[in-house]
């Protein structure tokens, strides 16, 4: 008996073999006692371990990796604090439907519940921030659990799955079964929408003269971009996209009006406000879009396509709901619709587009918008752009027009500062032949910039553009506009010199101070073969416009900097 036991692989070896079989090439993580058996198994594996400097960084790298490819990003951390450091990354991935698998070490099974060293009830802590989770109590379950985790993370509405691994499970012998079958009786993946729902939607669409397609992350995930554009062209309907839906359909398409919502283009929001039919394609009527729900398109017909039926009628009642994969649903819908008479409507939308273009002052110092506008021009949409959270995120969303899905990666639902830079590392590892830019603020960059080590050590040639305004700019903007400019806790005076800091990590640093230098310095960064940090020292007190105050109707959009004092917004955050 003892002999045959010795011949058995360990739980960790079986685990890593399962990941290899799933085609995993990279794991992002940071080790610790309870996870050592798994790190040990990686020594002999084809999987490359990317050692990060903080577990949060590992989660965002895995997230960026996932969003750039659609394949799940894998994270491996130890128990206790290692595991709790992944919570922000789990929330970020869950809110934005990113597939991710997080492996956490755990104390021995016999110690569970005894406050053993670095024991934390990790499944308990993470219930609200995972799509699903497991604690392995029998190593023979490992192959099934891994198979299920990949299936759950990547299908339907994707999301993060956590697997908690007690050390005796990973260290001990594992008698893995030969055949592995999933056992998920409560989990179904919607495919095509019901014919009756498609017919109803087509009927409603046929009556519309002022339709609009409101395209979200679901369209990116489903790879529905081509189908969406085909639908827009067939119906002659304009499109708008959400912050996360950027690029699902080409933002430079003549029927595309850009991003809608709080900091969307004025013409996108005017079109939404004036439409007679709005069809959400993998978008969830989020409060950054709807503002005042009661005043949001009150008379327009509403249709919702989503793979997650729990989103239907959640925020407002729908006239038709189509449950299924966005691409398949639109393909089926295309067969049922004919061109609409939208000539006047398109004329109106274009008139708004011409009357209210995105603009920024060309004088008075270096502007973030100018830098981003030039980055867009120089890269011509052929790069992957990730962003952090704040003003720079909104400017990047406005000025970096996205031509294709999975080329724009940002934390939308959670709004996680510190996301942008590690996400770019993950995206670059996933797609090494692409030019990858992380647009970050000086505030958020400092939350995860220790990963400069990770980028330097692994030679990950992601390019960081720090929009340095020496403020927590977005909060400062709110305080200026809505709190009588009573600035509180937003001044980042005492920032490090980011160029020197980059150099200290062995990463090239470039500073831009003058508008006239923008093109040359950006090009210098583009030409550099390796990670680089470009620091744009921009004017300190610029604001993002257009802006719809939180909770306000679209008609309250502020297009130009206001002269009078504004009321405090009623909406949250």
């Amino acid at each position, binding site marked *: 008996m003892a002999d045959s036991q010795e011949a058995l692989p360990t739980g960790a070896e079986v685990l890593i073999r399962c990941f290899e079989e799933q085609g995993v090439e990279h794991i992002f993580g940071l080790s610790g006692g309870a996870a050592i058996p798994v790190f040990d198994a990686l020594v002999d594996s084809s999987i490359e371990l990317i050692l990060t400097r903080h577990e949060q960084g590992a989660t965002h790298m895995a997230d960026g990796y996932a969003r750039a490819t659609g394949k799940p990003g894998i994270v491996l951390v130890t128990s206790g604090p290692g595991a709790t450091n992944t919570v922000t990354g789990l929330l970020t991935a869950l809110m934005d439907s990113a597939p991710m698998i997080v492996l956490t070490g755990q104390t021995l099974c016999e110690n569970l519940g005894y406050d053993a060293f670095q024991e934390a009830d990790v*499944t308990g802590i993470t*219930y609200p921030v995972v799509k*699903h*989770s497991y*604690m392995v*109590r029998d190593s023979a379950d490992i192959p099934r659990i891994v198979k299920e985790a990949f299936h759950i993370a990547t299908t339907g509405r994707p999301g993060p799955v956590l697997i908690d691994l007690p050390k005796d499970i990973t260290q001990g012998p594992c008698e893995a079964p030969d055949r592995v079958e999933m056992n998920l*009786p*409560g989990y179904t993946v919607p495919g095509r929408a019901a014919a009756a729902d498609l017919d109803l939607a087509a009927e409603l669409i046929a009556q519309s003269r002022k339709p609009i397609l409101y395209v979200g992350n679901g369209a990116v995930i489903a790879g529905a971009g081509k189908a969406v554009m085909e639908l827009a062209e067939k119906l002659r309907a304009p499109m708008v996209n959400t912050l996360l839906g950027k690029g699902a359909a080409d933002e430079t398409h003549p029927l595309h009006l850009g991003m809608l919502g709080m900091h969307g283009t004025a013409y996108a929001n005017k079109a939404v406000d004036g439409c007679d039919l709005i069809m959400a394609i993998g978008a969830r009527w989020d409060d950054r879009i709807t503002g005042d729900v009661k005043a949001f398109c009150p008379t327009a017909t509403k249709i919702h396509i989503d793979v*997650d039926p*729990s989103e239907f009628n959640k925020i407002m009642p729908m006239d038709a709901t189509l449950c299924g994969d966005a691409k398949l649903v639109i393909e089926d819908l295309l067969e049922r619709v004919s061109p609409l008479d939208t000539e006047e409507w398109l004329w109106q939308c274009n008139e708004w587009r011409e009357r209210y273009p995105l603009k920024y002052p060309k004088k008075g110092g270096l502007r973030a918008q100018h830098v981003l506008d030039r980055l867009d021009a120089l890269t011509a949409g052929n790069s992957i752009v990730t962003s952090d959270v704040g003003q720079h995120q909104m400017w990047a969303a406005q000025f970096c027009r996205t031509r294709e899905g999975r080329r724009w990666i940002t934390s939308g639902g959670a709004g996680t500062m510190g996301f942008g830079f590690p996400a770019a590392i993950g995206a670059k590892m996933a797609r090494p032949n692409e030019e990858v830019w992380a647009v970050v603020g000086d505030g958020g960059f400092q939350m995860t910039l220790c990963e400069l080590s990770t980028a330097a050590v692994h030679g990950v040639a992601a390019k960081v553009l720090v929009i340095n305004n020496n403020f927590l700019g977005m909060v400062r903007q709110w305080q200026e506009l809505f709190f009588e400019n009573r600035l509180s806790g937003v001044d980042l005076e005492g920032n490090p010199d980011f160029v020197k800091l980059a150099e200290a990590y062995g990463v090239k640093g470039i500073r831009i101070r003058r508008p006239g230098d923008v093109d040359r310095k950006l090009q210098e960064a583009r030409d550099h073969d390796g990670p680089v940090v470009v620091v744009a020292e921009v004017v300190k007190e610029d604001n993002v416009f257009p802006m719809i105050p939180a909770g306000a109707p679209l008609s309250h959009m502020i297009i130009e900097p206001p002269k009078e004092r504004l009321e405090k917004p009623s909406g949250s955050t």
Partner: protein
Amino acid sequence: MAAPDLALKDTTEASPLHTISVFVADRPGVLVRVALVFARRGYNIESLVVSPAAEGGFSRMTITSSGDPETLGQIIQQLGKLVDVIKAVDHTGDSAYEAEIALIKIECDLDQRTEILQVAEHYGAKVVDYASESLMLRVFGASEKLDACVALLRPYGIVELVRSGKILMARGQKRT
């Protein structure tokens, strides 16, 4: 879960009680996942019964809960999203058979016993423990009947009350 509520419910003003049946795969953590869906939306669970289902590896949860119907609709949708939930149905207003059991301990003098036993008889309650200073009654039936019985017995000095929580099954061909 609700704090023990020994007073008779004022059914006129309380928001309506809903009975939800949740059919789940019997996996670790499924109860917590279900409970969190309610808790996050500020919904109070009044009673909760978990028991093995006819099919091996599955459990049946019967949950009574109060709150506005719209939020409840949301909760049902969110329950359906949980990986381990096979089905979640609101049975409020459905044709279904419902039952509950209550155990009631009353401290009473000998001279009160006759009256108590009369009440008990009326509700078909059985005396399951006879002690010199107390009685334990077991009453069985619809939750409303149990409410009424408890209310009538309260003046005699109920010292302990344990209720099983409501269980429910759809009638006829319909599945719960």
